[in-house]
């Protein structure tokens, strides 16, 4: 009964959607409203005004920087929500270096991961720092940092990764993405221009561009570190297994 009602509703929604698809501007054409109104300025002036060769980076950090501030707040609130629901990982856990079934990861996996993680982190750093000119940026870099921590945790176990990244070191930096945005915004206000304006008055020549790219870089690094730590903390809070605490240490082979 419920299924039939749902299916009927879905059919109605589907017909409405198909109707919209039939009436929508043709795909893959140049003369649709979205490509003639706001975008030309972004594409033509994006490098000089927005301060980034990668127009998307310019749009998300500069033209729509306020949105991106909201976006980093979204992941921060997701972290707060996860912690509020699940609590932080416990600090003292004794069973180290084993996976869930109590089996130590093989030496090959451990060695490979030990070499892989620095490379992945290095790649993430490249992505964060070079997001201005190539695809990538703070979020992508942050997600990759998070992924590297996940790999590390899977192989070396939760205690090892909480030892490497203790809670006290993580908490102050989790909100750094928002603080980066706010700091740059307040600098703008202090100089008498609008919030999140990177072109400060009273500067001349190439200094304007330099200051702007430095400010964008601060925000980008903030997003990278903050995003990476948030993903790390969410995953660590979720993999926390309460049974870990109760079991004695397994002797290392």
């Amino acid at each position, binding site marked *: 009964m419920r299924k039939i009602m749902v299916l009927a509703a879905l059919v109605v929604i589907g017909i409405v959607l198909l109707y919209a698809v039939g009436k929508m501007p043709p795909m893959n054409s140049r003369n*649709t409203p979205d490509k003639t109104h706001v975008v030309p300025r972004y594409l033509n002036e994006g490098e000089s005004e927005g301060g980034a060769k990668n127009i998307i980076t310019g749009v998300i950090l500069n033209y729509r920087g306020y949105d991106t501030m909201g976006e980093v707040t979204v992941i921060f*609130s997701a972290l*707060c929500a996860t912690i*509020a629901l699940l609590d932080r990982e416990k600090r003292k856990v004794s069973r180290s270096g084993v996976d869930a079934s109590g089996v130590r990861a093989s030496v090959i996996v451990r060695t490979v991961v030990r070499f892989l993680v620095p490379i992945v982190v290095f790649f993430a750093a490249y992505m964060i720092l070079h997001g201005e000119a190539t695809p990538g940026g703070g979020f992508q870099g942050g997600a990759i940092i998070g992924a590297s921590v996940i790999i590390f945790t899977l192989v070396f176990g939760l205690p090892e990764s909480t030892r490497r990244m203790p809670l006290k070191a993580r908490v102050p930096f989790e*909100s750094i993405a928002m603080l980066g945005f706010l700091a740059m915004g307040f600098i703008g206000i202090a100089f008498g221009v609008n919030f999140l304006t990177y072109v400060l008055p009273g500067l001349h020549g190439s200094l304007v561009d330099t200051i702007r790219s430095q400010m964008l870089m601060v925000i980008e690094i903030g997003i990278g570190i903050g995003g990476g730590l948030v993903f790390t903390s969410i995953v660590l809070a979720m993999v926390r297994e309460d049974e870990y605490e109760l079991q004695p240490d397994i002797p290392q082979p």
Partner: protein
Amino acid sequence: MSVSAHHPVLLVAVPLFFAALCPIWGMWRREACFPWALLGVVTTGFFAWSLIGKVTSTRAVTYNAGGWRPPWGIQIRIDFLSLLLICMITGVGLMVLVYSWRYVGKELPPEKITYYYTLVLLILTAMLGFSITGDLFNFFVFMEIFSITSYALVAIVGGPRAVRAAFKYLLMGATSSITVVLAIALLYSATGSLNMLDISNRLKTTSYLPVAGVALVFFIAAFSVKAALFPVHVWLPDAHSIAPSPISALLSALVIKMGVLGIFRILFTVYGHTFSDLSSTWSHVAGVVSWAAALAIVLGSIMAIMQRDLKVMIAYSSVAQIGYILLGITMLSPLGMVGGLYNMLAHAMGKACLFLVAGSIIYKHGLRRIEDMRGLGRTMPVTAGAFALASLSIVGLPPSAGFVAKWYILWGCFQKGNFAFVVIVLLGSLLSAIYCFRVVYYMFFAGARERGATFDEAPLTMYFPAAVLSAGTLFFGVFAGLVIPFLSNACRAVLMR
């Protein structure tokens, strides 16, 4: 440019700053979180206060984030409705925060307190940002922040019913969020812009009006879920009744108003200008919303009467009151709209007060069932008195703010000549009188002897906010002239263009 020109953005930036630093304070010392959050809300309240004069003297205060003019950048735009909402958010938020101090200390495990205050600051930030933005996608971003935080706050205590209710809320809320993105995508494809006023201008000339019409339907459907309009209200009674009481107050008084604001912005700010092809779709959508709202008034009240648990009853009453607000707004007469918007204010204060009172009773005596409230009027006079005053406003009796609101709504119905709605509004008031005064009766008049007449009041920081809020309903009933002229100007401007 002086600092006062930046107040619109500081309204978001300052509470965000406080929220960002809250976990760090909590790591140092848990007790530091409450004063820190209080300081944040008070500072934000100062900015909201400072905007009152500016907004009432001009039609709207605008601020370009990043210094980019509207179609290219994000514009913050504070009109009178936004002003009303930010005053409500900071005011009710402050009261709820003060109330939380003792309540949370008892109800929550200590390790969750830090993140409780962080989440409350985040939810207030997001609602402030949502009320003042003039950009559709920014609208969505802030909506996501307050949605995610409210899912977590509902389940923060972690009882079985709480996590179940929170998951239900999350599923419906997330589905509606996705629908909002879909609608934004359709509207963007038809107009090529994201600024609300710019979209509204471009809708006059676009050749893709059918797409915009479909987007309108999706928008309204999605925001109806956030506002808990009648057929999609099913998450509300569970979530609002099981959440910790200060959070119930926050959700019922403010968060569902955000859905109403979404419907208002879409119907009037974005689609208000469009005529010709779209006008029939538009008026049909408004008609459907007003009938759903009328049904919500009747059925929500009936469900509230059938409840035996006080908080569930108050939650169902929210469904009915949202019906009043949306009925007033979608009636398309200036008087009705004034009534609907004024009811937002009245309901925010009244409903926050009712939930805080219910929380005090749970805190003090652990009572949830209405029959168990006998004699509380003697032992907890301030709390019970606040409840009685606030229920005057919920029912809509003079001299409360709820009376003014319902009077205007009724007047609007007469103006439109829609007598079915007249009957429904009056019937709704009658039904709400039944469910509210039943509780008042138990508190003050039934079986007082069973409980000792000793004074056994909740702590000061708990009955004071409730008393302030109920006094607020009285104040805005007597001095409705402070707000109504501006509201009616705003409504006439919205409807006449």
